[in-house]
């Protein structure tokens, strides 16, 4: 039970029963067309409708970053974006990082550096890191910290995460050129 609404857990997705509205977008390279509830968040849509459970709901108010996905090449807190706002958008979630069953370099480095403990923040961390490396293939430690400033790791394993991102950046520069 949350503090904000005594009657109902307010972050739990509840269907508004309003008339459905059409939503067309691209998720992890695949076209999606669905009729949806206009009040659902992008996070609700990904988890509830598409059964993509990578993005998590931590705080539900943009503080923790566990719901981070990439929307039109920009990281967003998907808990603060309405699904209808993603009309025509291109969305990348953690499920879209691996190719043909092989983990991406970034994911491999997260494993190598033990950059995950409980794992709850990991999908969000990976997406923030992915967006960073896309806009800056050679980031400094400070730039990595800045890029994950909106992602909380309550196991506090930041050191390993930063090292994993720096190592992935190096490998991507060497192997993907």
């Amino acid at each position, binding site marked *: 039970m949350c503090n904000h609404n005594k009657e109902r857990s307010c972050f739990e997705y509840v269907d508004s029963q309003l008339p459905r509205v059409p939503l067309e977008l691209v998720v992890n390279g695949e076209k999606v067309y669905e009729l949806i509830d206009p009040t659902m968040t992008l996070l609700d849509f990904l988890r509830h409708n598409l059964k993509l459970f990578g993005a998590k709901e931590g705080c539900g108010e*943009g503080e923790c970053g566990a719901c981070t996905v990439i929307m039109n090449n920009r990281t*967003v807190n998907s808990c603060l*974006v309405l699904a209808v*706002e993603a009309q025509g958008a291109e969305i990348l979630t953690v499920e879209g990082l691996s190719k043909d069953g092989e983990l991406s370099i970034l994911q491999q480095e997260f494993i190598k550096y033990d950059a995950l403990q409980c794992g709850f923040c990991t999908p969000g961390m990976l997406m923030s890191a992915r967006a960073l490396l896309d806009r800056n293939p050679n980031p400094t430690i400070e730039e990595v910290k800045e890029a994950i400033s909106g992602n909380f790791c309550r196991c506090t394993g930041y050191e390993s995460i930063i090292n994993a991102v720096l190592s992935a950046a190096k490998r991507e520069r060497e192997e993907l050129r």
Partner: protein
Amino acid sequence: MLSKFEYYKPDSLEKALSYLEENPGTRILAGGTDLMILLRRNVEICDHLLDIKGIPETRIKSYSPEEGLFIGASITVNEICEDDEIRKMFPALSEAADNLASYQIRNRATLVGNICNASPGADLAAPLLVYDAKVHVVSLKGKRVVDIKEFFTGVKQTVLEENEIVVGVTLPAVEAGDTSVYLRKSRIKGHDLCNVGLALRLTSEKKLLMAIAAVAKTPLRLTELEKSVEGKEITPELAEWISEEIKNYMSPRPNSVRSSAEYRYHIAGVLVKRGLKKLIEKEAN
């Protein structure tokens, strides 16, 4: 979420204004980083949500020596951070933008949303105040331009009427030699609201302009204090004097969760001294 709203995203300003007129109580959605939290917490229940991001006028970010800098209502904070021209001409604005919330939030949050939300600690308010920004407001009845000094009326309150939309803000062009800084103090470095936010600007005519946020019901432009130091050279003694004098203009809440009033009084003085030093250094370079 208990709100059962109709979502409407018009492609023109006219359609948006008519919708507002026809549907009282409509909430305007830009980045949604404040509004979505209120809706999800059921602090606010709304029946109509007007997404303004499809309105072409709100997508404009432009600069001309005659008109100055125009920032449309859909321009995100990160779009301001990434603009090198803005950083060169209006450094305090870029520095405040750099410090607003987290990277993801800055990808969605807008400058206009930050001032319309009218939090006393709005990071972007102080730089807009020292740059004499003008807020462009429209309704079906016509346009009006509000001076940013007149825009805030209280905690989370502005002069805006229910049927009005802010299309954007303009910052008058600056002359060569004009410089500014933004300093803030928060509990942690990173994603946190500020305890004190301070913008200082030294114009090309060596006039010192000051604005401060999170220390009163609204962000403040310190015009009286500016007058009392007009024509004076910025020395360590003057900095010391301003750092004491500024406390007379503050009225921080005694029971804030983020810091005590005493701390805010103290840190405002510290920021003034640091800021003036930085300003002088910038000017010397």
